[in-house]
């Protein structure tokens, strides 16, 4: 009986670890190889605090969680500068350093001998001694930590995490401060790992570095992946599997001395097997989610939809006709290539300005420079008179400047509705504090935002497909989705990068109609396009670029009948 209780306790502890890692790895897409290190930091911190300073277990656990959470923040902060593969390396290095310190700093950690005689947990005077009495305590704590992970993952915060996992660049372009989300996720994940470490320490009354090495980190990753990443119940299953199976091995005669390598051999082969045959894990991401419509889609009145679109953003206090965006003499070179050279333009509300030119002339680079994804070497960008040249993309989105992508970049593994909802600004559900302390308000706002998102989808004609996965849409539909996502941000300055490329005549006409309507609503629009018929229909002023420079600014018809420009565009 005690043995069974022990197994359940270990499964519970690993569930805490798997679900917290799931937030980081499954939802956030960040490959963290150091979860065991955070686990260990918590364990040792709690042990030392309770043994040497006489603190009670609960205090020790909380302090351990705080410490690990803090270290998680420190780890995540440089993460924006470090790309995916480097993050694996970075977290591996951290894992090795921590493990090395645990082994070598004998004066604190007692090295490989480990710390023993760690006081057993006692909560409000109740002493916990046997595995079976611990079961209740650990179950309660596990439920608590699991609930935290579950709430975070199923909130608007969790939705943004999934966006980051899908396409980080795209997430920045809809106004999310990606760094903040990454840091907070590492904080929560790290804190829970630290708490779990404390629980382990006081449960076993003994810890040593072996439990916190690289293999342990890999085991946790296996639990997340095998159970089903991006699904919290998957983490429960994963830890059940990878703790349970090796334990069952004890009953197979003759394997007693081989438990450790046998367990590793099993989880190694399971990992390979699952990646090959069931990469989504045992419980896939979208099980039990919005695959099935729970309530019929509310049909929104036309006036409401229009009211949403005409919504002026609060910062706007500009007269119609005056330029909202002024780009003055921006230059950018990459290595030896001058990609953009002294480019200037003005954009005004209600007007569509088109940017045309041969491939490689710098049009997309101009967009990248204006929207904050790269910084110009010289020159400036002014938004309503303010210099915004070196601002980050998400800051510009808050000021109303948004851009779309030539290669669409929808969040493929999320529903169409989620794609649009993610883009809606000012969601309090994206704040951790609100998720836990103002759940009612978050719920209300979610319902409101769902209606808004459906309205935007209605505008572009995708309302029927709200619950389908974005990756399953046709290319033209993905472009429509990208448009809906763009206007959902509430931006008043819209930069479209080749909105009609790859689209047939009918879809192009629809796109044209929608862009013109948006201009009618007072939006400031700039479009990069190759489809010259569309360019003619859309704009009064067209800018012709070549080799990074503005060659001529005129009406589209004039540019198209200019023989020199035709030469540049179509070749000799």
């Amino acid at each position: 009986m005690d043995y069974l209780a022990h197994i359940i306790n270990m499964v519970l502890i690993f569930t805490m670890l798997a679900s917290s890692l799931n937030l980081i790895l499954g939802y956030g897409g960040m490959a963290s190889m150091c979860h065991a290190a955070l686990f260990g930091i918590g364990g040792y911190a709690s042990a030392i605090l309770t043994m040497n300073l006489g603190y009670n277990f609960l205090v020790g656990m909380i302090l351990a969680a705080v410490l690990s959470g803090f270290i998680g923040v420190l780890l995540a902060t440089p993460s924006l500068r470090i790309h995916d593969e480097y993050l694996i390396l970075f977290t591996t290095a951290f894992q090795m350093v921590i493990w090395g310190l645990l082994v070598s700093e004998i004066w604190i950690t007692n090295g490989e001998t480990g710390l023993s005689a760690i006081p057993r947990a006692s909560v409000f005077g109740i002493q916990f001694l046997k595995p079976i009495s611990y079961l209740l305590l650990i179950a309660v704590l596990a439920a608590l930590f699991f609930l935290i992970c579950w709430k975070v993952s199923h909130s608007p915060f969790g939705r943004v995490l999934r966006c980051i996992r899908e396409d980080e660049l795209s997430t920045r372009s809809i106004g999310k401060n990606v760094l903040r989300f990454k840091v907070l996720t590492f904080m929560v994940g790290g804190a829970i790992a630290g708490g779990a470490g404390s629980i382990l320490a006081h449960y076993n009354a003994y810890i040593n570095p072996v439990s916190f090495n690289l293999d342990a980190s890999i085991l946790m990753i296996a639990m997340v992946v095998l159970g089903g990443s991006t699904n919290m119940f998957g983490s429960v299953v994963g830890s059940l599997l990878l703790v349970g199976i090796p334990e069952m091995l004890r009953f197979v005669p003759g394997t007693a001395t081989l438990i450790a390598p046998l367990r590793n051999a099993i989880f190694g082969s399971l990992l390979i097997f699952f990646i090959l045959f069931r990469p989504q894990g045992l419980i896939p991401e979208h099980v039990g989610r919005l695959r099935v419509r729970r309530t019929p889609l509310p049909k929104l009145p036309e006036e409401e939809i229009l009211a949403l679109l005409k919504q002026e953003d609060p910062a706007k206090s500009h007269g119609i006709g005056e330029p909202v965006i002024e780009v003055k003499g921006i230059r950018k070179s990459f290595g030896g290539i001058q990609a953009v050279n002294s480019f200037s333009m003005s954009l005004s509300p209600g007007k569509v300005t088109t940017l045309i030119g041969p491939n490689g002339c710098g049009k997309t680079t101009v967009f990248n420079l204006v929207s904050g994804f790269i910084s110009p070497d010289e020159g400036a960008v002014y938004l309503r008179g303010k210099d915004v040249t070196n601002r980050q993309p998400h800051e510009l989105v808050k000021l109303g400047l948004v851009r779309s992508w030539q290669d669409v970049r929808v969040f493929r593994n999320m529903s169409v509705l989620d794609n649009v909802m993610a883009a809606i600004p000012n969601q309090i559900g994206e704040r951790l504090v609100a998720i836990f302390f103002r759940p009612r308000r978050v719920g209300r706002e979610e319902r409101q935002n769902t209606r808004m998102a459906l309205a935007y989808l209605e505008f572009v004609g995708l309302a029927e497909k709200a619950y389908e996965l974005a990756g399953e849409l046709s290319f033209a539909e993905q472009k429509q989705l990208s448009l809906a996502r763009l206007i959902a941000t509430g931006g008043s300055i819209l930069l479209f990068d080749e909105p009609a490329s790859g689209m047939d005549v009918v879809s192009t006409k629809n796109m044209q109609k929608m862009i013109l309507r948006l201009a009618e609503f007072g939006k400031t629009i700039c479009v990069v396009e190759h489809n010259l018929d569309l360019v003619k229909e859309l704009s009064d002023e067209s800018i012709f670029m070549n080799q990074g420079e503005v060659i001529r600014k005129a009406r589209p018809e004039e540019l198209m009948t200019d023989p020199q420009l035709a030469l540049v565009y179509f070749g000799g």
Partner: protein
Amino acid sequence: MLQLAVAGIIWGSLYALVGVSWGLIYSTTRTFHFAHGLTFTLAAYGVILSHGFFHLPLFVSFGLGLLVAVLCGCSIEFLVYRPVRRRSSGQLGIFLSAMGTLVLGESLIQIFFTPTPRTLQIPDISDIPFSYGTIFFTMADLLLVLVAWGILSVLELYLSKSKAGREIRAVRSNPELATSVGIRTEKAFLITFAIGSMLMGLGSFFVTIQSAATPHMGLHYVLMAFIATFLGGVGKDWGIALAGLAMGLVENLSLVILPAHYKYIVVFALMFGFLLMKPEGLLGARNR
């Protein structure tokens, strides 16, 4: 201190070798070949078995070790990575399958050979010592340094002059374009794995004849290989080699100022700090 510098050069040459062996595979196939550590370990056991157990001549064991390494690397590519790539589970999927392979392989070795370190009991010509004042190294050490840098030069020649080498470089820089000009990417991948694994086996031989073979020995070297690759810059073989050399020197010279038990983590701490400062690498990484 001079002795430490010499040790640094010896270890640095080893790290340069394993670094380039991994870096070649990564830059060409974009596979995070974690299981490269298994190649190292299997080659070591191959040498131990053939020379220590079956008493085959040393140079035969050498060849056998290389053969085992190449077979190991190529089988992993063929049996694991290729199918995983076909299912397009992304980089994470490949990485996880690589980890799974490493863990599985090392566990099986531990089960069959037990964790006891296996050494070559027979004293060898490779143990001939050289001693100049305070400096001491063995014939094996000298051979390692000479062979490592020699083979790296041969590799560079091969990559630039031979047909297969050109195909590898083409695939490295633009896999889609390479396919469209008729280069069979899968064949190029296999050759890359073969070469990389062979180099790893080479390193393993020199380590094994002087110390021992243990089931988990490969992990340390594959981790060093990662670090060398990212410090040196993906795709820059000489950068990686230099980084490996630097790592060996730092690891050993650190003993002058730091206590011995930090030696193992010095390089990781270095990597950690380096990534914070300069995420692109030592000589500036290629843009992906």
